[in-house]
């Protein structure tokens, strides 16, 4: 079924999609996370929140409206039943626990559930945008990222080295190799992606982790 997913990002997005429950209010970060809706299981539909000010984010329909963009600034649409609001209200929803799931990319994640994804000092300083509020406020925080950096360095660490986006905020880490949950006792390997073995994950992960006994 998912053997047709040749692309790493697609593998990750498809696995993230399986975390969604019907009716969930979901905020998706820029990039990889925006692929998630393409892989929602049958019977599951989610409501997308766009932090620039609406509920019901959907694809562009008809003409492009310059006043209607997603949180990446790209042309977007709104589905029937959606609603616009201002930035204050948008973050009331986010911080107030009215968003069920947020999916973000990561530069580093660690065994304590810390996430770093907004700055590489001296190199890349885009700013945190809405990410700090999202990881603090959403009920479930999923980090969806490639397991290692482009150089091949592990991104799942014992302790993040980069400035944090949030402290102890991550619930689930989904990569093209594995799925980890973050628990009070640290990371637990919950699943291996298809065709991946435990040794590969151990080798490419710079944090200790427990293994869910369900993994053969």
């Amino acid at each position, binding site marked *: 079924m998912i053997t047709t997913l040749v692309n790493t990002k697609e593998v990750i997005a498809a696995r993230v999609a399986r975390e969604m429950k019907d009716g969930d209010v979901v905020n998706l970060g820029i990039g990889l996370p925006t692929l998630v809706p393409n892989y929602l299981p049958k019977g599951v539909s989610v409501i997308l929140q766009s932090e620039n*000010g609406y509920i019901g984010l959907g694809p562009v329909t008809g003409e492009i*409206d310059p*006043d209607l963009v997603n949180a990446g600034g790209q042309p977007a649409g709104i589905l029937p039943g959606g609603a*616009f609001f201002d*930035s204050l209200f948008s973050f009331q929803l986010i911080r107030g626990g009215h968003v069920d799931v947020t999916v973000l990319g990561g530069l580093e994640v660690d065994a304590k559930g810390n996430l770093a994804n907004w700055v590489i000092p001296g190199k890349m300083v885009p*700013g945190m945008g809405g990410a700090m509020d999202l990881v603090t406020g959403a009920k479930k925080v999923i980090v969806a990222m490639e397991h290692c950096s482009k150089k091949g360095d592990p991104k799942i660490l014992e302790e993040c080295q980069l400035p*944090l986006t949030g402290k102890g905020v991550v619930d689930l880490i989904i990569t093209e190799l594995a799925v980890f949950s973050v628990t009070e006792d640290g990371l637990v390997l919950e699943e291996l992606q298809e065709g991946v073995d435990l040794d590969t994950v151990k080798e490419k992960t710079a944090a200790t982790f427990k293994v869910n006994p369900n993994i053969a």
Partner: protein
Amino acid sequence: MEKVISVEEVSSFFKDGMSIMAGGFMGVGTPEKLVSALLDSNIKDITLIANDTAFVETGVGPMVANNIVKKVITSHIGTNPETGRKMIAGEIEVDLVPQGTLAERVRAGGSGLGGILTPTGVGTVVEEGKEKITVDGREYLLEKPLRADVALLKAYKADKAGNLVFHQSARNFNPIMALAADLVIVQVESIVEVGEIDPNDVVTPGILVDKILV
């Protein structure tokens, strides 16, 4: 009081060193004519408060690119390489604020609050220099109000009393900035007579709006 002004009158409101809030999210909902008038007015040393610094050529981006800004208070500069370049070169100061916190600080400034307690940023560099307050066992940062001398906003429609409605995702920071500046100037796409906007539909009441540019 006549609120409708011409574009020629706009520059009279600007002064060196003033603080300016501007609505918009990556340029959407930013009053381009007002930004353009600001650029033409030859002022300098502005403190700019805006969600992001947009792009070099659009939104509030040209304010940064054209050297009139001394300091930016914003949540995101990644789409305007000029902001990052000038920051690293020491030409401008950049104060990065989480987006939800920025919205709360602007609202606090416009609503007579001394600040708000947010969990956002606890355990990160954002907490540096801020008071941490524990409420019912959870830590929060005390984030202080933000105000500006002038707010440059964009709305979809105004009546002549200044009542505003917004369009789609172009609303963003505009309504809260209308509360938080000494002078509020709004660029609108159309203007109608007083009474033509249903009072139930008004998002920003006219008493908050000082000047309207069509």
